[in-house]
């Protein structure tokens, strides 16, 4: 049961007419940046910065300063790589926004999604790299300052709640209301779980150990599994939406 994804074109004629045959190469480029970026994201955050999985919150300053000294180079290179490629998140999420505008649910939630993630990428992705880069930059800094940067980085990365919860809520509602079936309904339900993990993440601001700390079994490990499943599903469904996108059409303005 395939519902055609043709969307009524906005009233105004385009000033520049597409020459036949319309190609989808632009969409293809936009799509492939999604997995490309997240692949690099994995390299940056898992291999270089070592933020995923996170080191423990319940450690003393000596441990933290040793940690930054040991991983000095990889953290700085990780920060550098992130600074180079993190624009990919704007493409990945901007492309999702584009597909959301093809939905029949109206443009509002597309803009909410766009806004939420445009904001979220800074305190929720860049900041940890910047803080940890600053911490690793000068090993002879006061331990208490290095420890503060450690906390500031980890908490802003794992504990960034509102931007993502808002964006996920917008995504879920838009999908559920959409009659053009741009994304399947079950993806909306998966997204609701993402919101729940954000709500649970509130606890990590209050714990330094246990299942709800930033490295906890529930607040981190379970959450990262759910996130991994969700992100992969979003990516796969994005591919499907792009493949089903009729060439040469555009969403309403």
């Amino acid at each position, binding site marked *: 049961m395939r519902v055609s994804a043709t969307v009524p074109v906005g009233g105004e004629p385009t000033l520049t007419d597409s020459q036949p045959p319309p190609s989808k190469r632009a969409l293809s480029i936009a799509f492939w940046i999604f997995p490309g970026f997240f692949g690099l994201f994995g390299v940056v955050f898992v291999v270089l910065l070592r933020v995923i999985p996170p080191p423990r919150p319940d450690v003393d300053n000596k441990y933290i300063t040793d940690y930054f000294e040991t991983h000095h180079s990889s953290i700085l290179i990780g920060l550098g790589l992130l600074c180079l490629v993190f624009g990919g998140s704007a493409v990945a999420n*901007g492309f999702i926004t584009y597909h959301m505008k093809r939905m029949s649910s109206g443009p509002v939630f597309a803009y909410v999604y766009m806004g939420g993630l445009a904001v979220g990428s800074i305190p929720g992705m860049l900041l940890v790299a910047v803080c940890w880069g600053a911490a690793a930059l000068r090993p002879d800094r006061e331990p208490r300052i290095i420890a503060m940067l450690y906390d500031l980085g980890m908490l802003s990365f794992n504990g960034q709640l509102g931007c993502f919860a808002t964006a996920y809520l917008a995504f879920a509602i838009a999908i559920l209301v959409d009659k053009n079936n741009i994304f399947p309904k079950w993806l909306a339900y998966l997204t609701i779980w993402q919101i729940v993990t954000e709500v649970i993440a509130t606890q990590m601001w209050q714990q330094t150990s246990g299942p709800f700390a930033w490295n906890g079994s529930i607040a981190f490990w379970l959450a990262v599994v759910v996130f991994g499943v969700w992100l992969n599903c979003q990516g796969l469904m994005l591919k499907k939406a792009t493949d089903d996108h009729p060439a040469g059409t555009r969403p309403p303005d």
Partner: protein
Amino acid sequence: MQLLSGIDDLPRTANVRTQLMALWVTAISLALMLVAYAVFPGFWPPMSPEMSAEAVADFYRNNAGWIRFSMVTFNLCGLMLLPLFCVVTVQIKRMAAQSQAFAYCYLMATISGGTIFALAATIFATAAYRPNRDADLILVLNDLGWIVFVAPVGMALIQNLMLALAIYFDNGARPVYPRWVGHFALVVALAMAPAAFSMTVTSGPFAWNGAISFWLRNIAFGTFLVVLLVVSWKAVHRQAIDEGLTE
């Protein structure tokens, strides 16, 4: 641009008018930012990552006034680049159907990029706020400020990439932007890219005060903004002609 009489109330007219106003806002802001850039003592010469905590603290103490002025101006005017970027977004949306997706990616990149710029200005200004703060605290603020100011070029790179792709795929009868703008955008992106790794070295051309990470990056981006302003004005003018609003 003289708009034809009798069409003052059309939405199309307002669309063109507000785009022009947006370009003016950005033009004025750019001029102000240039002044702020010229008077920020930390750029002449750009502060070395190898400065000691004492030297950095002294610098902030001795130059607090100019630092505050320039960074507050940056903060105020930096985001006023957004009108230009939004004009570009509107123009991308006028392009051929296949370029549409890039408009949203472009807009997101400008928002995130602008946020980062505001953050850097905030950090620098905070470092100058209490001159008798401990030197090691001023040093860490200075480090954060420089890292955030110089290194996160990724959003600007994507902005330019999205613009270039949109232009390349704009195969309509009347391209919104001339093709060379796309090439230029990519060249600027390449010029800015090395700055991403500026914090991995503390001296030489790639350090955050170096010829490549600082001067080339900023001159390229600044030049690009001016060029973008001019070609966007021209694009809006063409839009006005195409929509019968002017001759």
